[in-house]
């Protein structure tokens, strides 16, 4: 009996373990993305950012989470209590479910689906229900306006994002997330180089989809106070926050898989660049060394200890990345290399993608709602349709070449279709522009 049970669960043990890791680590990761955001923001705004809790604010996310946990849980009297209670859970669940089909490396993946991409797109759109229901259940005008904006925005940009994803699917010929990365390995080229415009369309659409600035209409704090989460507080509010950052990680992972070769090292097949394999451990060593160097400079003893612990952690990671690299081939250790290094490259690429999110957020003013809709329907969707045709033509033109990678004919085809798409985009942008008012010139007396 026990034996049978074990046999039944045996294939599911590893996925279950992975799922547990994701559920446990993701909130922490989201917390540290918030810290990263605050630090990047501070850097761009000529200030320091969180510095008090832990050295350089390293324990701030934990303190924030604790604070939110013990806050009073307020449910407004006039709200629809059940829906108010359920809405944030819906958002978080959708975000976490989408993670199931993401390959964080050649090994680390909960479920390998042959329609993984479709699954991720479908499930992550479910998160909007949490926002709309939460805004509606709050029974407040600001929440309602935020929820309305959010739903309209997501519906509009989902189309453009989907079209951008299609361009990668055409190139890969599969809907499996793992398959997409493997095909990029076979073809010796990231799809970014074959469909650059597709990537930029996805970048814009994914920012809009995750409600991030400059498209953060649903929660524009200067207009709608906090949009759909105005009435939320404490841990329920934190769940919305978690959902937002989970969604960010999901779209960043998706972009990495679709356009940047997922867990692949840059130029995985060029042996002359094999030294790049040493980069992960060197990077971790560098971080460890810097932390160790900063440790004695911390003002308080406990901060010195935390900083030393950070250094130790980074050193351990460096060792973990180094051991499989130097282990003799064929041993168990050496077989762990693709998994560990894959995860490193994957997270690095996700991090860079997230950084562009933050960068844009702190640089650009916010769109107005009607302008956002116009951008979505009159510009992004037409351009993404043209782009799909362009990618199709690229595939057609380069089908006869056996060069695999970036042969000259493929490069020419990409350049040609990109230029055509850009021309179409420029024409659309020109057409969409309303009569600009004559510029104001300061006149002297």
């Amino acid at each position: 009996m026990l034996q049978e049970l074990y046999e039944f669960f045996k294939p599911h043990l590893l996925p279950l373990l992975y799922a547990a890791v994701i559920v446990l680590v993701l909130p922490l990761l989201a917390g540290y993305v918030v810290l990263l955001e605050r630090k990047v923001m501070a850097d761009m705004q000529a200030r320091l950012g969180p510095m008090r809790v832990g050295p350089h604010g390293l324990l701030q996310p934990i303190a924030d989470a604790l604070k939110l946990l013990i806050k009073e849980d307020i449910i407004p009297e006039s709200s629809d209590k059940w829906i108010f209670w359920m809405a944030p859970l819906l958002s978080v669940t959708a975000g976490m479910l989408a993670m199931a089909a993401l390959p964080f490396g050649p090994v680390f993946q909960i479920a390998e689906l042959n329609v993984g991409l479709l699954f991720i797109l479908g499930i992550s759109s479910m998160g909007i229900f949490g926002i709309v229901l939460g805004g509606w259940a709050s029974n407040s005008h600001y929440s309602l306006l935020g929820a309305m904006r959010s739903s309209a925005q997501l519906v509009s940009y989902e189309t453009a994002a989907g079209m951008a994803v299609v361009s990668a699917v055409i190139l890969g010929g599969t809907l499996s997330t793992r398959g997409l990365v493997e095909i990029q390995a076979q073809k010796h080229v990231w799809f970014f180089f074959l469909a650059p415009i597709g990537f930029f369309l996805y970048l814009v659409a994914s920012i809009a989809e995750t409600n991030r600035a400059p498209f953060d209409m649903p929660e524009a704090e200067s207009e709608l106070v906090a949009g759909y989460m105005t009435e939320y507080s404490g841990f329920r509010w934190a769940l919305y926050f978690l959902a937002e950052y989970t969604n960010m990680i999901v779209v960043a992972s998706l972009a990495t898989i679709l356009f940047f070769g997922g867990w692949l090292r840059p130029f995985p097949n060029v042996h002359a660049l094999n030294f790049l394999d040493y980069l992960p451990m060197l990077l971790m060593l560098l971080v460890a060394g810097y932390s160790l160097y900063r440790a004695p400079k911390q003002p308080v003893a406990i901060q010195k200890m935390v900083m030393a612990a950070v250094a130790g952690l980074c050193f351990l990671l460096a060792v973990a990345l180094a051991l499989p690299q130097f282990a003799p081939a064929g041993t168990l250790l050496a077989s762990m290399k693709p998994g560990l290094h894959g995860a490193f490259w994957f997270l690095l690429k996700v991090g860079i993608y997230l950084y562009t999110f933050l960068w844009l957020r702190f640089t650009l003013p916010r769109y107005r709602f009607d302008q956002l809709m116009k951008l979505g329907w009159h510009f992004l969707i037409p351009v993404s349709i043209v782009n799909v045709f362009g990618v199709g033509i690229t595939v057609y033109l380069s089908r006869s070449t056996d060069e695999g990678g970036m042969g000259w004919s493929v490069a020419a085809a990409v350049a040609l279709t990109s230029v055509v798409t850009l021309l179409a985009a420029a024409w659309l942008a020109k057409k969409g522009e309303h009569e600009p008012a004559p510029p104001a010139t300061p006149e002297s007396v």
Partner: protein
Amino acid sequence: MTDFLNSGFRKTDLNSDANMEQNVETTVLGADEIIINMGPQHPSTHGVLRVKLKLDGEKVVDSECIIGYLHRGVEKIAEHRTYQQFAPYVDRMDYVAAVSNGLGYCEAIEKLLGVEAPPRARVIRTILTELQRIASHLVWLGTHALDIGALTPIFYCFREREEILKIFEKYCGARLTTHAFRIGGLQYEAYDELEKDTERFCNDFEHKVDEYETLLTSNRIWLGRTKGIGVISGEQAIAIGATGPVIRASGIQWDIRKAAPYAAYDQYKFDIPTGKNGDTYDRYMVRMEEMRQSTRICLQAIQNIPTGPIMARVGKVLKPPPGEVYHAIEAPKGELGYYVVSDGTTQPYRVRIRPPSFVNLQAFDTMVKGHLVADVVAIIGTLDIVLGEVDR
């Protein structure tokens, strides 16, 4: 209490929506118009302005500004203070431009007394007032950009404003509500490095303005959010009595520094920037240019600060002859006027203050009609109101 409320003192009960609700109409899609309250506690009403908006979807059909949440009775207080005692109170009206408020008040009383501040005092007053104009415009720029969603400029603006506040601190010990001037001149002699500090600041600041402009001026999103938003024509602006950058952006060249020079403004060369369209973008451009012109005035002024006394001969006890006087200056936000009536005693009989924010706020209803909720905050920002001054 209820008697008071029912006595007809208030025509409408401000705390109910009944007034507006009578006019709620059903819109094309069959949905009702909704009424939302923006403020007095709202992140972007710049203090305690309350705006009641009637919305059709997100479009503003009707609006009503409700003020008075920061009323402190400044004008009434004046009637129970001596002329000198009242001077610090005016700093608390437009608290981001305290120096300008003080200048207007001191000059009004000097006019009433028939004395004139010595040339040295007048030049130092001009320098500090122009620095204050820059500081006030920096606060406006930062908060305006923040309202429109640009998170970063406010930190750059406050970084530069800090330098100005440091100059104030070195001069008179206070940073925000400075009480920098006295009736008849100045209490404090300029500190040794005032010229050097001002020169350093002005020379650096020109590049800083360029820096803000690279972030905003030709940014497509910024253009989309400000061009054609909150348009007010020159005639309309004159009709409601708008002044300052609001009227200049509508193409009217009206600046009291040129029209009726005070302090030492007649000695310096500067331009009055004007716009054409009277929209939010033009007001932005006008204020940006005004900051440049202010540095120009400061740089001219420090070249030649006359020597001599800093205080005119006024007695310890001020007893202006009976009479009345109106004196206006060009504060950062527009015409700041003081109408002072003296009955020959040590206390003013009446002080009436014409605050620019209060008058400019009247343009709000005209500007906002037909725009979206997002534009409401842009328009509140572009009017550059300070509620301490609106409510007094």
